[in-house]
């Protein structure tokens, strides 16, 4: 007696993207080519990875640093760059207090340094550009969402895309110069004159759901767990189906 299992589910988001097991299994050398400061706490690190198999917006990778005694530290990071940048990837990293990996990047790393990466990993949070996307992020949670915005722009896609991005203030808004009409920033502590200060609220989310594109939105939420809980509740309250909300939480 053999049976297949199909769960009764509200959360039936399938693994939409086939992940290359070979690409995910092999560590590759990534050479740092450029460092760009984004905010006082975050910088973008650009790498040449000649053998990079390509990725989809929203995917992440695993990165490792190795000390002289063989000690290894590895972390998952979302990819910030669009997929079309052949042989190059960009990561945007917060300088985490006491962070051994982000600390190395922010205080030691310089162009020419080599690290190791494997990936891309996980198709769950990926967006192929095939359906309308409603993106909600906070802090460096905007990184995988920016890969989607850049992809949308680079390909000149017609499919609707909106980004709500929360930051403490204009100084802390990552990629501030790159946003266009698709983006609404929300400032929680300080804002330019005439812009309200406050937490992301129903008033930000509800209008986007009352003007849904045909077929509705795929929602992508990324940030701290507290932000992800808050934003996903706002989406559900505004009528976004639970099974069409993907969440990536820091950790």
């Amino acid at each position, binding site marked *: 007696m053999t049976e297949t299992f199909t769960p009764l589910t509200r959360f039936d988001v399938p693994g939409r993207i086939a992940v290359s097991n070979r690409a995910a299994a092999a560590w590759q050398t990534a050479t740092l080519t450029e460092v760009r400061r984004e905010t006082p706490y975050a910088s973008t690190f650009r790498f040449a990875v000649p053998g990079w198999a390509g990725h989809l917006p929203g995917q992440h990778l695993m990165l490792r640093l190795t000390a002289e005694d063989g000690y290894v530290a590895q972390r998952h990071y979302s990819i910030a760059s669009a997929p079309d940048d052949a042989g190059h990837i960009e990561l945007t990293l917060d300088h985490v207090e006491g962070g051994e990996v982000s600390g190395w990047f922010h205080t030691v790393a310089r162009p020419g340094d080599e690290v190791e990466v494997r990936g891309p990993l996980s198709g769950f949070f990926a967006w192929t550009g095939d359906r309308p996307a409603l993106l909600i992020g906070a802090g460096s949670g905007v990184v995988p969402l920016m890969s989607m915005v850049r992809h949308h722009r680079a390909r000149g896609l017609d499919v609707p895309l909106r980004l709500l991005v929360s930051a403490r203030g204009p100084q802390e808004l990552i990629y501030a110069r790159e946003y266009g009409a698709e983006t609404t920033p929300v400032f929680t502590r300080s804002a330019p004159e005439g812009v309200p200060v406050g937490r992301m609220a129903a008033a930000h989310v509800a209008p986007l759901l009352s003007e849904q594109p045909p077929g509705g939105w795929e929602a992508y939420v990324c940030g701290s767990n507290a932000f992800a809980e808050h934003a996903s509740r706002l989406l559900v309250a505004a009528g976004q189906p639970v099974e069409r909300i993907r*969440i990536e939480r820091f950790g």
Partner: protein
Amino acid sequence: MNVTRGFTGRPRVHHPGLPPGQYDAGDDWPVLSAEVTPDLAPADWTFRVDGLVERPLTWDWDEAHALPESAYEGDIHCVTSWSKFGVRFGGVSLDAFLHVVRPHVSATHAVAYSHTGYTTNLPLSDLTGGRAWIAFEYEGKPLAPEHGGPARLLVPHLYFWKSAKWIAGIRLLDHDEPGFWEQNGYHARGNPWEEQRYSGD
């Protein structure tokens, strides 16, 4: 070995309980679920064991709590590289549920599924012999919703994505069938001591 210029890393911890490639998260307990945390009250929670069993059965909250209590005290390990030492979960051993439903000898694997629809696959041998629990409590308090409360599967000897939050049931099968993350490139078994993170590891 490709040494990273100028990288020293944090002070070395020679903790025999730390699997390769992991670090001690200390007091942090990161939340990494990919779906919306469900609004699930204990009164609405049920747990079913079926598939290749003699007597499929569904327990509600009170019925599950009538089974003998069993606690886990030890460590947990997440595939994203953090480990957490010396945690305590309270609940019921999965053996107690399996004892009632009586698995067929043909049952070799299981799919655990959540009230959200999340799934994860495990060899049946990883769920028996006092190595798996249905957990209701963490450090003596009800398990928080974002950590899988009111009840989650607990299989602490494997990476923690196997410990399905908001556990709804376990179906016993005679073959392995990849669950949610396993279809997304993660390893079929996920043994942290062998660093089985991704498919192919």
